[in-house]
């Protein structure tokens, strides 16, 4: 049973535009929601994360929006750059004592000039 659904599967955005990736979860016990960025041949790199007690978190050009009632969260990349071209994964875990990460299926983002 897939517990974290991610969309879209692939996304093409023009340089300078806003990239938006969405995730939805089913398990209300999830307590921590990170986003990872992965380049080909590399391991996932932690980008930004949020807890359900806040609705938004911003770090530089990256913002997470969190809607607890809808059980949805999204990643916004402002002023997207060619170097942002990568695969992005959302994930969720139940928090301290159960740090197992459940990942979405990934979004391949391509930024075109």
């Amino acid at each position, binding site marked *: 049973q897939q517990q974290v659904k991610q969309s879209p599967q692939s996304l093409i955005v023009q340089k300078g535009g806003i990239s938006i990736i969405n995730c939805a979860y089913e398990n209300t016990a999830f307590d921590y929601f990170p986003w990872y960025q992965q380049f080909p041949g590399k391991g996932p790199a932690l980008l930004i994360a949020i807890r359900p007690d806040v609705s938004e978190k911003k770090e530089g050009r990256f913002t997470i929006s969190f809607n607890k009632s809808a059980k949805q969260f999204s990643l916004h990349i402002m002023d997207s750059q060619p170097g942002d071209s990568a695969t992005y994964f959302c994930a969720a875990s139940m928090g301290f004592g159960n*740090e*197992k*990460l459940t990942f979405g299926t*990934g979004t391949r983002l391509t930024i075109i000039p």
Partner: protein
Amino acid sequence: DAGVTQSPTHLIKTRGQHVTLRCSPISGHKSVSWYQQVLGQGPQFIFQYYEKEERGRGNFPDRFSARQFPNYSSELNVNALLLGDSALYLCASSTLQGKPYEQYFGPGTRLTVT
């Protein structure tokens, strides 16, 4: 500071063989988790170890086993390899102190089973 390191980088094995993958966590991190990432999919949780004790196990067969050593490094062992075990095996470490949720991944070991 060095990040999570894994060895070997690449490995080719034949069906039925056994493989051992190794992971060294970030200095000061006491928790190590293993994930399997099949091409085109998100990582799937295999094991978590903390202070040498198994803390969690994913939905993988008993052919998969792991252990953690006193220096917090870890090994993942897979017996009786199947073609379907071909994947990128990722190790992640975390402190479980202060910011207990942040997990940092290594570059992975690419396992090919022929």
